[in-house]
């Protein structure tokens, strides 16, 4: 049975209506998932363009499968987050044992380099700090108390008893294990982890975090700015400072090092907007901790991309990403000396 036929049967069963699928095209990109552009018509409704998002063969450590993503997206949409809702979750549609769901197609630009550097996106860049801060505040309003069943317990290190969860310690322990499993020791990253262990924030509020909140995961219109947040595969219980710091990592500034928030904004307008929308006070020193941790996390993630190549996934981009871990290592150690070191 073709993919189009499987999808037709699945959506028909889910909606109780006749379904006509005119196109199913595989889209490029995605480390943990396969995305297809699907054009369909359900019953007498107008024709729609959707994205089918499905589990791929491989997955990255800490990533959700599509069933987990769909749950998070449902919670995010209910909280008013600007992200297309997940519809018609199903299993075995694209491959045996894999989950998949549909999302509304959102027009715009997601490529980070274009959003940050192309002149026609200047109006959007002027809006993004306020818009993204507002979305983060909504994400961080989702807590274990409000959504106790959001993540099945025990699947990932952060999916534990949230009454005792310390997101900092869990992440540091996980990173230490990941580093230890690499074939070659990385003393620079071990030094950064040692510093992080010695400078743990005194208190970490536990909320939902996007987990990969950066330019490249936002759909942006050149005039009106943010259209949607994308890619919830790394969502988990965490602490708000993680998301606030991740977007400021050097590697996500696409060369605009003078504008630390995603290459489009200074820090203070973004932090001030987040404080207004969330009612939280942003601790700048705590953000430095998470910026160091973010660089360590991204360096480790990059090195594991290289490991995937060594273990047989012959995609040359994996080596290129792994080779850049040195940049994140340098940045993590530089930050230990203070923001101006």
């Amino acid at each position: 049975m073709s993919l189009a036929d499987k999808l037709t049967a699945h959506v028909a069963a889910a909606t109780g209506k006749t379904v006509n699928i005119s196109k199913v095209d595989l889209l490029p990109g995605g480390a943990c998932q396969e995305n297809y552009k699907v054009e369909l018509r359900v019953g007498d409704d107008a024709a729609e363009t959707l994205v089918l998002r499905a589990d791929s063969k491989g997955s990255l450590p800490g990533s959700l499968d599509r069933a987990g993503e769909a749950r998070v997206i449902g919670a995010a949409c209910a909280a008013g987050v600007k992200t297309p809702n997940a519809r018609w979750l199903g299993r075995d549609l694209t491959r045996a044992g894999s989950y998949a769901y549909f999302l509304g197609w959102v027009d715009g630009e997601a490529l980070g380099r274009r959003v940050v550097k192309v002149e026609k996106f200047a109006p959007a860049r002027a809006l993004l700090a306020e818009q993204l801060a507002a979305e983060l505040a909504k994400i961080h309003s989702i807590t274990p108390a409000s959504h106790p069943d959001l993540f099945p317990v025990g699947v990932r290190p952060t999916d534990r008893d949230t009454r005792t969860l310390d997101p900092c310690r869990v992440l540091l322990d996980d990173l230490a294990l990941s580093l230890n499993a690499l074939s070659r020791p990385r003393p620079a990253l071990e030094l950064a982890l040692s510093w992080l262990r010695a400078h743990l924030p005194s208190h970490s509020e536990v909320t939902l975090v996007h987990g990969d909140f950066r330019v490249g995961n936002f759909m942006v219109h050149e005039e009106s700015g943010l259209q949607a947040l994308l890619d919830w595969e790394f969502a988990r219980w965490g602490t708000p400072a993680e998301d606030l710091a991740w977007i400021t990592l050097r590697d996500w500034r696409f060369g605009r090092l003078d504008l630390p928030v995603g290459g489009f904004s200074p820090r203070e307008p973004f932090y001030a907007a987040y404080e207004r929308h969330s009612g939280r006070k942003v601790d700048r020193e705590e953000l430095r901790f998470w910026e160091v941790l973010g660089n360590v996390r991204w360096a480790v993630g990059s090195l594991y991309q290289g490991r995937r190549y060594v273990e047989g996934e012959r995609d040359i981009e994996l080596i290129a990403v792994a080779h850049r871990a040195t940049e994140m290592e340098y940045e993590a150690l530089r930050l230990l000396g203070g923001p101006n070191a």
Partner: protein
Amino acid sequence: MNDARPALGDPRLAFRALIAGNLARLVAANLAVDEKLETEATQRLQLLLPNQTGDRAALEADLAQLLRQDALDPQAFAAARTALLANLAAQLSVDNPLFDLSAPKESP
């Protein structure tokens, strides 16, 4: 690479050719300075670990182990940071000469 890429109609293939060309450049650049880089990095590590012997890999493994155990006092920790930053900077000067090693001057 500059000869091959225009002949590749598939943009994805052309992008991969670009990556392959850059990786080849990296290998060549590293081969040209490999010994000097290795010697200087090893010397910095030997200064940190005067009681240890071995090549760079062995010294890095020893240092990594000490750091995992949080076994360095503040002075040794600061010295390790300085040495590791210097080693990383030297590697970056070959891998990505355009990488700015100074702190970004952020807009207020």
